[in-house]
């Protein structure tokens, strides 16, 4: 892969179908980047949870609003950003779903899963006010040799 960063931007409608679409796009890009099947699953699921968050909580299922997904591939990382048009939120204000008192809550696990499945996860409030979820996965290590097979 060249050292140049590759970038794709997708504007998604605030629709349930956008969740599957975003997952599918991210998995195709991750597959092209060389991730294993298990890692593909984790990336797809993290992206899915990010778009569910934007659809449900950020945009409050308001079809007039959009979800912007950006995926960047640089020589080291795959970075996925999911931006909604909601009010934004502070990560530290979200209850920990692993706490005993939250185990029986029926929601609130999406952010936890994104963090669990990616190498880095953060949330920013965009200048326009929406929440931007940033998820980073380190690219799989490739052979550093000259492309020839080493004798066994």
């Amino acid at each position, binding site marked *: 892969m060249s050292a140049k960063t590759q970038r794709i931007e997708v504007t998604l409608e605030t629709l*349930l179908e956008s*969740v599957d679409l975003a997952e599918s796009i991210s998995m195709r890009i991750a597959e092209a980047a060389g991730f294993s099947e298990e890692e593909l*699953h984790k990336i797809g*699921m993290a992206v*899915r*949870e990010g778009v*569910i968050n934007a659809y*449900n909580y950020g945009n409050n299922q308001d079809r007039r609003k959009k979800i912007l997904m950006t995926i960047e591939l640089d020589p080291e990382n795959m970075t996925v950003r999911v931006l909604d048009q909601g009010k934004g939120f502070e990560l530290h204000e979200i209850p920990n*779903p*692993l706490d005993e008192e939250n*185990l*029986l*809550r*029926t*929601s609130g*696990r*999406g952010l*936890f*899963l994104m963090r*669990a499945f990616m190498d880095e996860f953060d949330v920013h409030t965009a200048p326009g006010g929406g929440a931007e979820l940033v998820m980073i996965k380190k690219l799989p290590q490739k052979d550093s040799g000259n492309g020839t097979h080493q004798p066994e």
Partner: protein
Amino acid sequence: MAIQATCRQIGDVSILDFSGKITLGEGSALLRKSVRELIDGGQKKIIISLYDVDYIDSSGIGELVSAYTTVKNASGELKLLHLTKRVHDILQITRLFTVFDVQSDEDVAIHAFR
């Protein structure tokens, strides 16, 4: 793969066999409806079999938790059966293994009801 659910009755135990994805939308809604129908029909011993479910998202997990509390509030008991590795792993990292009674053998699950 579209989500499907079928219900079997063994004695006084209802077994819901799911196949497909339990995710936001159709999958979660079918799980909720299936459990609700059993409770409304007076069933108290319910097993959700996930043998053919290899994908569940946070919405599906939330629906399983909701099923657990719905059944418990109706003085019933819910067990999960035949988890695939991915569902097993998700329940483990979300600490829900400490909430659900998870079984790997159907006969054992049926006889484990009080």
